[in-house]
């Protein structure tokens, strides 16, 4: 038995698709263009990384990953991320909190300042640390007199990474917190919560997805940063070589398998980040939509 309701929906559906002004060929062309673009610029490079990494077999792949210098590069990268990401998590959270919830003088300036690492080329930020901490730099003499090595050692790499990954968490949270306003916190405070409780039980649950997203991005960049780290690293194998730097060195030495094996780990990290993000969105989609402003 035909349901008149359904039939009556049909023309409405038609008219809706007709409201999309592009004709079918245009739509197909645009879709194909997008797909081709994605394949050429994202998928193919990714495939080539793995193809080159396994070009001489699985044995050669794992042998090059087992190399002592490579393992130390992996360790250093993990260490740097383990320091830089929590620091920027705390900083980004406090900065976003201050900017979104309070009014104060110089707020616009602070916001601009947070964006600075995005607008400065990473190589330049590395060079700034050289000018600051280098032997001929501003603080060079003092550091030398006290026997402190910052440049061309792990602290310099951490500093450069912190600088470059500075904005990720804050940038993710500021618009979100601004949109949410102060209402919830004020309610909590009026019900007798102290500031810490208001933050822990009201603000944090509201922003957790944005925060997580910011941390994921921050982490990916911290592990992948090349330019700034390259300037301050000193390229000492086994000591100050991070994974991206190690990739370049291996490639320069005509060790393609080694270079792409390390690159495949970095690509793997990117994929894991992507999958994590997708899984989170699938599992908590509705909640994320509600608490992530954009």
């Amino acid at each position: 038995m035909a349901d008149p309701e359904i039939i009556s929906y049909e023309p409405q559906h038609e008219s809706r698709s007709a409201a999309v002004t592009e004709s079918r060929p245009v739509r197909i062309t645009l879709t194909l263009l997008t797909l081709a673009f994605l394949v050429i610029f994202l998928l193919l490079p990714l495939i080539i990384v793995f193809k080159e990494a396994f070009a001489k077999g699985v044995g050669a792949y794992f042998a090059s990953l087992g190399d002592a210098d490579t393992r130390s590069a992996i360790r250093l990268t993990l260490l740097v991320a383990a320091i830089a990401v929590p620091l920027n998590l705390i900083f980004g959270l406090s900065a976003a909190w201050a900017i979104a919830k309070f009014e104060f003088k110089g707020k616009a300036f602070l916001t601009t300042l947070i964006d600075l690492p995005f607008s400065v080329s990473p190589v330049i930020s590395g060079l700034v640390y050289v000018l600051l901490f280098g032997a001929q730099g501003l603080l060079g003499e003092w550091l030398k007199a006290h026997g402190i090595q910052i440049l061309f050692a792990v602290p310099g790499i951490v500093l450069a990474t912190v600088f470059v990954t500075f904005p990720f968490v804050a940038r993710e949270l500021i618009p979100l917190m601004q949109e949410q306003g102060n209402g919830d916190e004020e309610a909590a405070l009026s019900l007798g919560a102290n500031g810490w409780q208001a933050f822990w039980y009201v603000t944090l649950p509201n922003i957790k997805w944005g925060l997580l997203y910011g941390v994921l991005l921050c982490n990916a960049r911290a592990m992948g940063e090349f330019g700034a780290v390259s300037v301050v690293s000193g390229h000492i194998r086994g000591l100050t070589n991070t994974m991206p730097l190690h990739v370049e060195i291996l490639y320069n030495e005509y060790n393609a398998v080694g270079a792409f094996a390390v690159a495949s780990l970095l690509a793997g990290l990117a994929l894991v980040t992507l999958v994590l993000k997708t899984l989170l969105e699938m599992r908590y989609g509705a909640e994320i939509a509600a608490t992530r402003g954009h």
Partner: protein
Amino acid sequence: MKRLLLGIAAFAGLVLASSQAWSADKLLNASYDVGRELFVAVNKAFVAKHPGVTIDQSHAGTSAQARAIAEGLAADVVTFNQVTDVDFLVKKGLVSADWQKDFPDNASPFYSLPSFLVRAGNPKHIKDWNDLVRDDVQVIFPNPKTSGNARYTYLAATAYAKEAFKGDDAKVKEFITKLFNNVPIFDTGGRAATTTFVQREIGDVLITFESETRGIRKEYGDDKFEQVTPSVSLLAEFPVAIVDKVVDQHGSRDLAKSYLDFLYTPEGQDIAANNGLRARDAAVAAKYKADFPDVRLLTVEEVFGGWDKVQKEHFAAGGLLDQAYGSR
């Protein structure tokens, strides 16, 4: 708050830890970018003779290395592939002015030269520098404005032309301009030029250090490329020096000296020859004779009157290099 404090504490710990990492039984060797295999082998052999010693390696372009050392990279010794980059350290007061007298052979324990790599079978019959200016030959080397490797190529070609045209400067200039005209792409560095030649399959001949051609053939297939040694080329020194300021601070002068001396021993020379560099030691050179065809080598001093003069006349803005490069 607790986490913040922990983070700061961890960072402070790192600063302290890295400031105490130096002692007299440890060396940092700042070296050129493609010297890893050589120094892995050298360090292994050296440490076997000096148990308990650690040699750390830093590899990058030597101009960048020299700059980093001036900014505080605590390298005890440098093993570079450009004399001018050691001179930079002299200017900064880190290396003594007469460093070339501290070790034999101008403080260059081994050497190389700009040489040719052609495709298998040498289809264009490229034998010497004059083949490179033929109309049917495409030549690949990086931009001499940015690459030290290509500067050697430029100087070697100029040295050849000076001899061939008996010092007729106009003809030398014409020769160099023609050579530059035969280069379809000027990459910024030696590695990129190799990619252009090997993977993009552009050009008939790649000019680079003889020591490099070995690595290229090893990675991309011995049967795909052939090495061609020209009749005459330019001596490319691989200078070594002790960084005085650093060894005095570390108390590592004796170790640094014996490390660089080791490069001159038959064992050190054998390792170098095994890695594509020409040995100074006569016995080692004789042993590897088959790998290194005879070639007449000119020096920068005798052809150009030293690096300072080369810098002023050829590489300075508006110099001879600019003139040839600009008139392409």
